[in-house]
């Protein structure tokens, strides 16, 4: 017990202890820094989402109406003149991500109700998906103008 009391003394004397005024004085300052950090990370998270090249092209491929995965794959290849190509595995990863984010949805319509495979499921843009596609297109376009002003590319 002696040992304990001695250590109690040592802690009482040396362990830094923040008085309540100090704790409260820092509360809002720290919370505001956390809020700023959240705002910054939200921007980058959405930026990263918006920037995902493949996802953007899937949204673009669905602009003219619903399509099934295979049609999406060929539409993307066509839109990008073959520069971006999806395999069956990667296209479903992207589709699932877009479904989860609420940017696209499955349609009820199947061309042939007896055939029930994933490849024939049709997808279409949701309202949110249309707005994100528009916003991202504007962002890319403004970046393009910016890049042209900087003369980093050959004239079109």
């Amino acid at each position: 017990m002696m040992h304990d009391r001695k250590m109690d003394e040592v802690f009482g004397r040396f362990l830094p202890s923040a008085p309540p005024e100090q704790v409260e004085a820092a509360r809002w300052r720290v919370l505001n820094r956390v809020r700023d950090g959240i705002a910054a990370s939200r921007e980058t998270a959405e930026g990263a989402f918006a920037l995902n090249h493949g996802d953007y092209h899937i949204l673009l491929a669905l602009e003219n109406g619903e399509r099934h995965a295979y049609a999406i794959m060929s539409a993307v290849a066509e839109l990008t003149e073959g520069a971006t190509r999806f395999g069956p595995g990667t296209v479903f990863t992207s589709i699932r991500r877009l479904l989860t984010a609420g940017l696209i949805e499955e349609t009820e319509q199947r061309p042939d109700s007896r055939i029930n495979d994933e490849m024939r499921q049709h997808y279409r843009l949701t309202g949110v998906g249309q707005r994100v596609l528009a916003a991202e297109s504007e962002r890319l376009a403004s970046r393009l103008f910016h890049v042209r002003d900087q003369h980093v590319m050959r004239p079109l």
Partner: protein
Amino acid sequence: MLATRVFDVTNESLEQDFEKLFHEHYPLIYRTAFSVTGIAQDAEDVVQTIFLRLYRRRELSILRKNPKAYLYRAAVNEAVSVVRLRRRHILTDDMAQLDRPVAANPLPEASLREEFLKAVSGLSASAVEILILRYEHHYSDAEIAKLLGTSRSAIAVRLFRARARLKRFMEKKS
């Protein structure tokens, strides 16, 4: 931008939950960080870091089970690593100042305090965790056991070992 606004709506309740959590646990977390680091600025940095990390990882659902334990442990770990990092920097600063004349006698109380902080941060995080709960927050063995999810007897043993290690550490230094 339109897209940003759309996402904001879905995040609103998450952010309210998050700020509620912040206010509820802030005093415990701040005081813990200050006790380990001994510097107000470091304590603020620790609090900011762990809450931001929590938000970015979207672990709010896991947190609903025992947010206090999660936040407390995160604060101890972060604060200990801040002190260890600082010590490394101070060491290199000292090397640069080797040529300078040294003050004849540093204040004994201040240097003892410094030694104590060094000794604490040299312990394992699980030992620091228990010592701060006992000596800064004045938790009983039962309360510590409840927060950390173990038995009272396990806490008594760990507390005894932590104290003994700290004592040995300080005796070796002096």
